[in-house]
């Protein structure tokens, strides 16, 4: 089938402002949007710039706004879009560096702020720490996160307020808060509860809709809110 690929392009070395560029392509319904971007880059316009690596939704490189919704370009097939006009824009709320590439530094800064690592200073046992399958299941969802930023950059609060820590960081905090082996909740709650923290979430659910790993992001956020609340009252 014939498709029109419209890309919001911006090259700080040449352009004053972002502008749309259209490409006509021949595509299979089963082609990924990433394939289309590659086709343009490899056959027509080598300057088209985007991030990608794994090509099958596991490395988290290729989050972009496709037909108005955040998705992974490598996990979105042409046939999923039900239209032959495909628009691609960079994810929102982070500074655009070039075309579809944004500066991820603020995103990872928020991630680091929640102390996203196991905190447990007890000397570890000789063998593994024990954990029942039930205890393991409680925090399973958060372990799927690939740090693609699709959620955070779909959040209407984050778009307008860069101080909001964002859903991704909260998901990664959840992963440890609910891990039976972890003892760092005091520190994490402090990071989450301050200004720009979790209380900025207005339950808009864009994050949940956007997550390519089908993590119930808002549900996890709400669980963390309740955990913090219960902890302090």
């Amino acid at each position, binding site marked *: 089938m014939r498709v029109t690929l419209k890309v919001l392009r911006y090259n700080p070395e040449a352009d004053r402002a972002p502008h749309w560029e259209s490409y006509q392509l021949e595509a299979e319904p089963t082609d990924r949007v990433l394939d289309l971007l590659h086709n343009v880059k490899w056959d027509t316009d080598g300057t088209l710039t985007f991030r990608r690596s794994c090509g099958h939704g596991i490395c988290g490189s290729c989050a972009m*706004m496709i*037909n*108005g*919704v955040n998705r992974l370009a490598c996990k979105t097939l042409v046939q999923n879009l039900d239209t032959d006009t495909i628009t691609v824009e960079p994810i*929102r709320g982070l500074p655009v560096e070039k075309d579809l590439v944004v500066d991820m530094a603020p995103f990872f800064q928020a991630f680091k702020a929640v102390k996203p690592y196991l905190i447990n200073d007890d000397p570890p046992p000789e063998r593994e720490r024990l954990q029942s399958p039930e205890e393991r299941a409680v925090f399973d969802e958060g372990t799927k996160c690939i740090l693609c930023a699709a959620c955070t950059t*779909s959040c*209407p609060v984050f778009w307008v307020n860069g101080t909001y820590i964002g859903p991704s960081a909260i998901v990664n905090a959840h992963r440890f808060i609910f891990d039976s082996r972890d003892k760092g909740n005091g520190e994490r709650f402090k990071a989450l509860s301050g200004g720009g923290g979790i209380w900025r979430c*207005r*339950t*808009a*659910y*864009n994050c*949940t*809709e956007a997550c390519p790993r089908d993590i*119930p992001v*808002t*549900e996890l956020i*709400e669980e963390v*809110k*309740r955990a913090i609340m219960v902890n302090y009252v």
Partner: protein
Amino acid sequence: MYRGREGQWAFYLHRITGVAILLYLLVHVGELTAAMFGSKYSNAILHFFHQPLFQLGLLTVIGAVLYHALNGLRILIMDFTSWGTRLQNKLWYGVLILFALLYVPTVIKILPEIFGGGGH
């Protein structure tokens, strides 16, 4: 415009209605405070706001309160139950239906009064 779904629109509406109600409230309190200066001033101001245009505005604010209140309850369910987040879009449709059920009769009651000339 980001093509968000129910949750996004519920949020935007909640935010807009919240601001609208607050702005109204500020005016409303001011309007009543005039009573402190006696019936003359008070009645003048109250009657000023009885003009159809303001009454239509009031009707809209009532709608805003209704939506904000019902959706506020939806938010509470999501915040304090384990199942609320999973049903959030259904809950929102519930909010809209309840809103319609309550607001339509309200409009039917009030709209004629605005133009039919009520007490004055």
